[in-house]
Structures are given as C-alpha cells and as structure tokens.
C-alpha cells in the first residue's frame, strides 16, 4: 500500500466531522435558549417509531424478494433489477404523488374497490408513512442483498444439493451468515434515511401527530431563527443515530468466504412450495414498486408530448455536472475511508464507519446553515454554492458507498491477502491486480447510487441557490410552485430517466470486465 497510505482516510473522516459536528457547533455559537420541549420529545419518539418500523418492514420484505429474484428466471428480470434503483432516487414530492396515484383516496386501488361497496382505503397516518418509506427503501435493501447472494459461491449450493440438505438447513448454513453480514448495515441505512424524513412523513402522516425531529429543526431555523434549538435537536438526532450505528455495525459479521465467485446459476431443483412462494412475492412486490413509477411515466409522457419546458435542458445539464462530480468525489472518499478502515482493528473500524455514516443522520438544514455561518465571514457562500452542493451530496452518498465497499474490501483481503503477501505484491500493483477486480462491482454500484442521489437532491441547493443556477429538481419544484403541474410532470419524468440512466450506466460499468453477471 505505497500510494494509499493512511493519510486520505483520516482526511475524509475529518471532512465528514466538520460537515456534521462542525456545522452543528457553528449554530451553537449564534445563540442559545431553553431545552427541548414536550412536543420536541414526542417528535423524537415518533421519529424513532416510524424509522424502526420502516427499516424492519423494508428488510423483512427484501429478503424474500431478493431470494426470488436470484432464484427465478423470468422475462423482464434484468429490467426489474435495474428499476430497483428508481424509487429510492426520486425527489420526495414526485414519489409521494406517484404513491397517491395508486393508494390515495383518488388512486386506482380505490377506483377498483369502491364499486364493490368496499369502504375507501385511507392510508393517512402511520400506514401511509410506512408505505412510502418501504417503497423508497425496499429496493435499496434488495439491491444490497442481491449483491450478498451473488457473493455466495455456487459450489456451496451444489454441495448443499449433493448432501441433500433441507431448505431450512441450507438457509441456516449458507444463507443466514450472508444475511448476518448484510442486514444490520442495510437496516441501519434505512433507519437513518427515515430518521431525517420530513416532507413525506408530514404529508402522509395526516397531521402534526406525525411530526419528526427534522420538522422541528426546520421550524427552529426558518421560522423561529432559534439556531441554538436547531443545534440541540440535531445533536439529539446524532446521538440516536450514533447509538443505532454502533449497535448495527457491531452486530454485523463478515460474510464467510470460500470457493469461487460466480453467480449461482446452477440451482438445485426446488420444491413446488418454494417456487410458489417465490412467485407470490414477485407478483406482489414488483407491482407495488413498479405501478407508481409507471403512472409517473404515463403522466410525464403525456406532458412531454406538448414539448419540453424551456430551461429544462440547461437545468438538466447543471444537475448532470453536479451528479458526476459528486459521484466521483464520493467514490474516492469512500475508497480512501474503506481502505483505511479495513486495516483498523474491529472496534476502531466500527467507530470510524459509524462516524462516516453520520452524514445520513445530519439534517441538511443544519449542515447547510452551519456551513453558511462557517463560510460567510471568509467568502460569499453564493460563489461557492456549486462546489458546496457537490461535496455535500458526495458526503451524503458516502455511507452507501462505504456499506458496499467495506465488505468487498474485507473479503478481498481475507481471500487474497496471504497470497499477495507470499507473492510480495504490494502498493499499486496489488491494488490493480488484486483489490480492484474484487471491488469493481461494488464501486460501480456506489458511483451509480451517488450520482443518482445527487441528481435527485433538493435539499442543499435550495439553501445556497445562486442566481441563475438551477438544478433539475429545483426547476421541477419551481414549476409546481407556479401551478404548472403538467410541465412539472414532464420534468419529473426526465429527472427519473436521467437518474436511472446514471445509476444503470455506472452499475453496469462496474460489472464490465468481471466474470460474474
């Protein structure tokens, strides 16, 4: 490891700590008043409840969905796996409208059931929030699990078949250890994403009962200008997320290795019961994920038929530039941190990754406002708006990149470390010949996620938005804010298509050149 000495890793960590704790501390310097009120604490309780449930349901459904996707071959399977990137990448308001087109009072489910005298479905409240959060995050967890399943050597399944293991024994011996490696981290990511949900939770929560900490932070910054209060709320959020991160990461066990890596395309014959179960999950969950997207697509296509809204290409170009820059920055940051992390002791590794993930728990309003306070005395935050947006987007995507890179790097080290050592392979040549091929796929996934996440981001840019610079989500939101809903639907479709294309291109890029599919 000549070129990748320990320096970049700690530098990345320092950057993350500045963006999170540094920004929060900057708020505390402005002013301070009282503590958290009773309604703040009930917001804390509600936030925890909905995040736990959202993460638990997403993970519980992702296991059978991923297993069915791995085991079954059907037309459109590849497209389905590609589309799994979509819900997660949509701007909140678009996804909510898509979901309501299916589940809402005026949605297609009610159109179907009400003629039969079945009372109208009302999703507002906790069910609506969970529905949306599962819609967002089930695909993400499924993607993580697909990767885990792909890492299980096909020989293990063949061996299991030869030994005549029952499905439950096979699950216990082969699949459970993989789940143990993936699920805690995936649960954590979903939990953190739902913690900072605000617009979704409020819109589908049916009223102020569904207040999350994030709303209280927004109120403190925007309406009360009580930055001290915002900082205290942010610290509460960090404490909860930090505890969750340490717990989840310490429960994670590395995926056992052995044999050769190849997609398990030779599967033992399955019983009819297993096949039925797989088909049932696919038949339920794929429409659940795809119908809202399809409706958004239809809506958008109809709108685009009357022409592109002027200004859209420019906004799309700005978004693409930011997305590519922040994806690159994010992947490099993640790689630096992951390489450092895998050489630390287990406990140190958990702490560093926990801190690296903290960015997800950070309120964009706190980070944005804190940075504003930090930068304002030195330079105009306006002039730096685009680089700041890029770096913040990169930092937000970092946890996802870490979660996919760290296990891959650990495995690479375990599998090839001793061999490289005996061949005296170090530094760049080791990275190129040994490390890179094993992390190429996770790198592609990480780049794709980071680019697409950045593409759909509406948080940071609104705080700094410099004159004349408009990202595509901002452009779309402004259309909606000016009654121009049809144009907005067209812009949303283009945004969805571009995000998905970015994700697909990188994800695919990572797969080229390796022997696995």
């Amino acid at each position: 490891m000549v070129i990748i000495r320990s320096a970049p890793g700690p530098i990345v960590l320092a950057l993350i700590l500045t963006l999170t704790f540094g920004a929060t501390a900057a708020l505390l310097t402005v002013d301070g008043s009282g503590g958290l009120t009773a309604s703040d604490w009930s917001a804390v309780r509600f936030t925890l409840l909905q995040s736990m449930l959202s993460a638990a349901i997403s993970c519980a459904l992702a296991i059978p969905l991923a297993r069915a996707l791995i085991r079954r071959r059907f037309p459109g399977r590849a497209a389905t796996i590609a589309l799994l990137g979509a819900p997660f990448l949509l701007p909140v308001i678009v996804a909510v409208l898509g979901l309501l087109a299916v589940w809402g009072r005026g949605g297609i489910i009610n159109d179907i059931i009400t003629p039969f005298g079945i009372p109208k479905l009302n999703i507002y409240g906790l069910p609506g929030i969970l529905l949306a959060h599962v819609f967002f995050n089930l695909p993400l967890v499924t993607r993580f699990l697909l990767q885990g399943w792909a890492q299980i050597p096909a020989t293990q399944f063949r061996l299991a078949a030869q030994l005549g293991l029952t499905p439950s024994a096979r699950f216990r011996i082969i699949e459970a250890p993989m789940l143990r490696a993936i699920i805690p981290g995936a649960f954590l990511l979903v939990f953190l994403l739902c913690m900072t949900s605000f617009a979704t939770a409020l819109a589908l929560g049916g009223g102020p009962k569904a207040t999350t900490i994030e709303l209280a932070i927004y109120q403190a910054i925007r309406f009360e200008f009580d930055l001290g209060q915002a900082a205290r709320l942010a610290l509460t959020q960090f404490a909860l997320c930090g505890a969750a991160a340490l717990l989840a990461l310490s429960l994670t066990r590395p995926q056992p290795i052995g044999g050769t890596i190849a997609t398990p395309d030779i599967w033992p014959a399955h019983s009819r019961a297993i096949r039925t179960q797989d088909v049932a999950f696919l038949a339920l969950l794929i429409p659940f994920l795809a119908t809202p997207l399809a409706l958004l697509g239809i809506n958008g296509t109809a709108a685009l038929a009357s022409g592109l809204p002027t200004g859209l290409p420019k906004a799309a170009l700005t978004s693409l530039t930011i997305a590519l820059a922040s994806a690159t920055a994010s992947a490099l940051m993640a790689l630096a941190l992951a390489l450092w992390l895998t050489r630390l002791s287990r406990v140190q590794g958990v702490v560093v990754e926990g801190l690296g993930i903290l960015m997800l728990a950070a309120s964009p309003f706190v980070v944005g406002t804190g940075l504003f306070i930090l930068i304002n005395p030195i330079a105009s935050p306006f002039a730096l708006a685009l680089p700041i947006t890029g770096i913040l987007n990169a930092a937000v995507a970092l946890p996802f990149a870490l979660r996919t890179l760290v296990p891959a790097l650990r495995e690479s080290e375990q599998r090839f470390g001793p061999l490289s050592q005996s061949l005296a392979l170090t530094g760049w040549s080791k990275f190129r010949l040994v490390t890179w091929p094993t992390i190429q796929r996770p790198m592609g996934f990480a780049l794709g996620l980071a680019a697409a996440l950045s593409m759909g981001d509406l948080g940071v840019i609104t705080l700094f938005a410099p004159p004349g610079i408009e990202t595509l989500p901002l452009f779309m939101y402004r259309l909606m804010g000016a009654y121009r809903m049809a144009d907005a639907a067209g812009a949303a479709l283009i945004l969805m298509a571009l995000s998905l294309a970015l994700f697909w291109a990188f994800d695919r890029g990572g797969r080229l050149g390796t022997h696995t599919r």
Partner: protein
Amino acid sequence: MNTLLKAAALTLLAGSVAAQTETPTLTIYTYDSFVPEWGPGPKIEAAFEETCACDLVFVGAGDGAALLSRIRLEGARSEADIVLGLDTSLTEAAKATGLFAPHGGWDVELDVPGEWTDEVFLPYDWSHLAFIYDKTKLAEPPRSFEELAASDLSIVIQDPRSSTPGLALVFWVKAAYGERAGEIWEGLAPRVLTVTKGWTEAYNMFLAGEADMVLSYTTSPAYHIIAEEDDTKVAAEFREGHYTQVEVAGILQASDQPELAQDFLDFMLTDAFQSIIPTSNWAYPAVKTATPLPEAFNTLIKPDPALLLSAEDAETMRKQAITEWQGALSR
C-alpha cells in the same frame, strides 16, 4: 485526492462567477416562484433595466420564511439590497433584526386592504386565503369554518411551522374567532385529511383528487381560467371573512446601492411593475393598474370583511396560535 476535489470545485466555480462590469448591480432576494422565466421576475427586470442604467439581479431563496432566515444568517454582509416577498406575518420579526432601513414613503394611492402605515416595508401585491374546490365534484361548498367542521369534506392544509400560508390560516381562524380559535380547530380536526410542508405539496395533492378542498388563494382560480381555460376550480366564500396575505418589499440597511434601491421601490408602485403582477404572480396589484384586470379576475370571490392581524399582533400571537392548532390536531 484533495487536489482532485479542489480541481472539481474550481471547474464548477468557473461557471458561477458572473462577469464584473461597470454598471451598478441591484440584488433582490425573493421567493423561488418569482424568479423563473414564467414568473414576474424576468419581465420586471427588463422593465426596470430600461430606466435604471443598472443590472437587476433576482435571487430565489426558498419561500418567505426562508428569505428572512437567509437575511438573518448573512447579516450586514449580505449582498442583497432589497428583500421582496415577505408577508405581514413576518415583517415584525424582520424589523426586529435591525437589518432593514426605512423607505422613503410613497406618493401613489395604495389599493391594499386596510390602511398602510408601515415605514419600513411597502406592499407590492396581495390576495386572500381561501379553500379551493372543484365545482363539478362539490355542489354546495361550506360557507364558514363552522359549516366546514360540520360537513364530511376532507381538506388539505399547510403546516404553520413550515409554511407561510399555513401560518396565515392559523391567523385567519384567530382573527375570525379570537378566544374560540382552539375550539374551532378541534371541530375542524376530523376534516383535515393531512398537513403538508408547503403549498406545492398540498395543491398537487388536491389536483390529484386526494381532498375535496385545499388551502390556497382566492386568486388561484384565475390561473386555471387564464392559463388552462379551466373554470372548475373555485374558491369557497366564508361568512367570517378571509385572511389577507399582503406581500411586501424592504431595503436593507447594509445596501451599497441605497438610492437605486429606493428607485426600485418607487418603480414597484408604478404601472410598469404592477401590471405584470396579476397574470404572473397570480395576485392583486397593490396599486390600481391603468388597464383593468383580466376578465377572469371579475369572476373571483370578493371576500368581506378582509381580515388581517396587524404585524405586531401577528408576532405576539404566533406561538400561542400554533400551539392551539397543534393541540387540537394532535388528538
């Protein structure tokens, strides 16, 4: 890697730095929907630049509340000369920051509900809050908050903790019912399908058929009539009167172009500015325009009385009014 980040930053930066010129620049912070090419911003910019020998720049900064918090964050270092887009529920807090300078008065007749006495802010447009419904789906809309509470209709409203119309609704109930506001909210609670972060979410949910009515403005139907030739969206007229949202602009104390800024405020009350407002910001002009308003505006309801809390009352009542709202809706 650090150099790479820097290089990326510089590349991005290159695009955002405006060319420096000799002509003075007047920077106006405003809300998001004012800036795009379909908003009033570009037309007003062109009209003012014809006379001012200056460069007028509009900067969009979220909504009204975001505008104020942005100004407070930037303090005296702000590049803004003028803030345009606060409403009277925020002006008292804005004055208390000491960041705004008094304006130089006005010499035209203002056409704004109530008497205008503010020495710091000048109005540029206004509209009333109203619940919008689709007349093809709802034949007999409620005529008061009490009728609404007694109905089986569903409404979508905005959260007063994150949205300016949401806050104005809380003031509406307060201005109409005073001490009884909490009780009115308890009656309305079952009618509230959901509460959204801002106007955009709520209005889109209404258009998608989620709720029977949505909190918006009396002027919203004018957009649908003029831009979409759709006259099905109508505002329900309430007996207790409708709350008024008056939008204002003010000059910043730290402006490096105070004279130019004053010129703009004067321009703001001329016909060149005011005639752009009705069909681009979808609100009533603050000064009678030379040509009458488009026909569609004659079909809009004309609420009586027009309710409006004074800026001082709004500031002192805000916390309590929000608490009452939250208490009633959290049950």
